[in-house]
């Protein structure tokens, strides 16, 4: 357990440091964020044609309201957390690859819902937007990451699940031993 958490923290800090470099920002984060804005706008236009995307900005052509997808809202950090958690956990590489692929879809899928919901919450009420943006959605995305990780751990082959350090027996078991 300690080794898992130490590896997790080290990996997370390293991945995050790499993400912050200008190189990673230019090559991955910015194109990713722009693509997220395009995808969200594409989905919105299925039911609301008065929306356009420009770079990382999604704008209503009806009332001019716009949201810019900034760091923390593009789901990259949440994905890095999941990536670090899966890489740090003892499991076969093939399980990790499958888990990461499915996890990225789950996290980014919910993140698209976040972006779209914030776009409309912001047009409705500024205070509600701030709350949803700064606090509520952050917690929900992390809950998503946690649930995906729990499901993935459950789906690991038994041998790999058993590779985790055994839990201490419950107190009742100790007392009756």
């Amino acid at each position, binding site marked *: 357990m300690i080794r898992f958490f130490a590896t997790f923290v080290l990996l997370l800090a390293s991945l*995050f440091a790499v993400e*912050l470099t200008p190189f990673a920002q230019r090559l991955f984060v910015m194109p990713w964020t722009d693509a997220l804005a395009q995808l969200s706008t594409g989905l919105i236009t299925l039911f609301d044609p008065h929306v356009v995307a420009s770079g990382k900005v999604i704008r209503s052509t009806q009332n001019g309201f716009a949201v810019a997808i900034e*760091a923390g809202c593009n789901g990259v950090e949440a994905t890095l957390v999941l990536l670090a958690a899966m890489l740090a956990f003892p499991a076969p590489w093939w399980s990790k690859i499958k888990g990461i692929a499915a996890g990225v879809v789950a996290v980014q899928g919910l993140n698209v819902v976040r972006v779209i919901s914030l776009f409309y919450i912001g047009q409705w009420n500024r205070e509600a937007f701030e709350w949803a943006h*700064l*606090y509520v959605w*952050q917690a929900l995305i992390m*809950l998503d*990451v946690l649930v995906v990780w729990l*499901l993935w751990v459950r789906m690991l082959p038994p041998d790999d699940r058993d590779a985790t350090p055994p839990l201490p027996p419950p107190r009742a078991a100790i007392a009756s031993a």
Partner: protein
Amino acid sequence: MKSPAAPVTRPGAPLTRFIIRVVAWLPVMFALWYLAAPVLMWPVALIVRALADATLHDLVTGVDQVMATLTFATTLRPGHALARGQVEVEVNLLLYSFGMPLLAALTIAARERTWKRKLFLGYLLMLPFIAWGALADFLKNIAITASPTVTAQAGFSSMQREAIAFAFQFGALILPPVVPAVLWVVMHRGFLERLRERI
């Protein structure tokens, strides 16, 4: 081997029920957290004040808490050398503590007998990380985002500014959501084992 008396459970049901309980508790916990923030954040103010006194005494003259906001009074001047007044920096502690309602919802939803103790322990363990976020936010303000006159007075080297930027980003984007999740996993290993078996 499965015991013949073992209850039949639907696949995925325990985890689904757990998630539903978490989502149901979240709004309640968010409301309580917001209302109780001035009290919950009081220890954070103490930690930040102690750290500022110990390490930034040449820059920080005082740290005051009003509701969930910390105000750093500094020795820095807002404009040129003759300008009056000192720079004050406000930091919203809610930005760094929104993991508290998540931890509370997860802990209560797990329905462990020791949930109150775990909740209190989790709260205590989160405090230093919130203090990290607050201090890094303050340092980012005076070292990076303030006017050049102020950042020059602060006197941080480019290497130090890089470190502050990283500490701020890590303290703002990673720690607030990750710390409660990690603490919850660490404190609920038994629950996770049962969930894993019955999931």
